[in-house]
């Protein structure tokens, strides 16, 4: 009787572990097992038919027309160094990298940037600001005009929407983005 009970207990534990491990792992693929049965009444697999189709030219196209690069003056200072040794002047400016455009898709903006050849460091519609410090060295016994600013690009063109080989919409688009800061000094 005891042997019977022990055997029953072990059997139940084994069966539970088997169920548990099967549920914890990925579904078992029966296709390679002996239990797999091919049903004669299974629905037939429908393969895609090969037939001639019309060329589907759909999507946006950017046609570039013009671009310009501009410098914006943000700081100007006349530095005087009457001493006999080199001096320095430091200035800190918040530099904002931004990009904006009235385009329907970011792919158009990427085409615009590629056409101009000046890359933007931020994604379309975003901006980041960091402080750039500039240190000018002023030679002994001299006066210099110090200048600093940012450079930005403006571009314009046409965004065309193609569908099934035809232009269904066309509009003029413009984009603007900052790409660098600049500084110089001019002897007075």
């Amino acid at each position, binding site marked *: *009787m005891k042997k*019977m*009970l022990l055997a*029953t*207990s072990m059997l*139940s*534990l084994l069966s*539970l*572990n088997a169920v*548990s491990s099967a549920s914890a792992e990925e579904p078992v693929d029966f296709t390679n097992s002996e239990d797999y049965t091919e049903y004669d009444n299974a629905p037939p697999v429908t393969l895609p038919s090969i037939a001639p189709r019309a060329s589907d030219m759909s999507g946006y196209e950017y046609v570039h027309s013009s671009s310009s690069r501009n410098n914006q003056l943000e700081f100007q200072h006349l530095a005087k160094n009457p001493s006999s*040794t*080199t*001096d*320095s002047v*430091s200035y*800190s400016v918040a*530099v904002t990298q931004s990009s904006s455009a009235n385009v329907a898709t970011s792919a158009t903006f990427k085409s615009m940037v590629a056409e101009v050849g000046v890359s933007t460091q931020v994604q379309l519609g975003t901006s*980041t600001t*960091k*402080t*750039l*410090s*500039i*240190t*000018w*060295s002023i*030679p002994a016994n001299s006066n210099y005009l110090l200048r600093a600013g940012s450079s930005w690009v403006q571009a314009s063109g046409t965004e065309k929407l193609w569908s099934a080989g035809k232009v269904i919409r066309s509009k003029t688009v413009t984009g603007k983005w900052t790409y660098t*800061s600049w*500084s*110089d*000094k001019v002897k007075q």
Partner: protein
Amino acid sequence: MIKIKNFIFILVILTSIFVIVACDDNQQIEEKPSTNQQIEDVSSPISLEKKFIPPNFGVDEFKVNADDNFVEFKISYRISPQLYDVLSKIDSKYYFELKIPGNISSIINKDSTGLVPGAIMEFNSLNYIVTLNLDLEKPLTTSDIKEIVQNKNGYGLYIYDQDKDAIHYFDDVELFSTIPK
């Protein structure tokens, strides 16, 4: 007798279920620390903005060497103890870039060196040297090499932070090196 047998059978099943559920709970508890680890990893960034303004950063010497198809720039620089601490905290992730002046870039057909990592802060040292190299496609003539080595004026020095954003610009590194300490 049959009732006792059934009772033991049910007891064994219940014990097995209890053991399986307990194991699952342990697995979930073990997975939780990884979530906490992710939260700990998010830390506030340390900014390098305005940290290189003199006298926190100074250049002691700017050297230029040139070969037939190779130009080497060496900048010996010093930093303040405050800047040392900041750079140590960001694992010395800062970069230098030299802007080549027009009279030299027309010879070597390059207008900058590209970004070069700054020296790693170690041993509490406040003096370091960074070397920026340029490999040239076209061999230099003897007069080109003489012009490059002797004329060191007008090189701009950019410093970039850990995000590779420019945070400082020195307009003339050679002239800057002549400022008394």
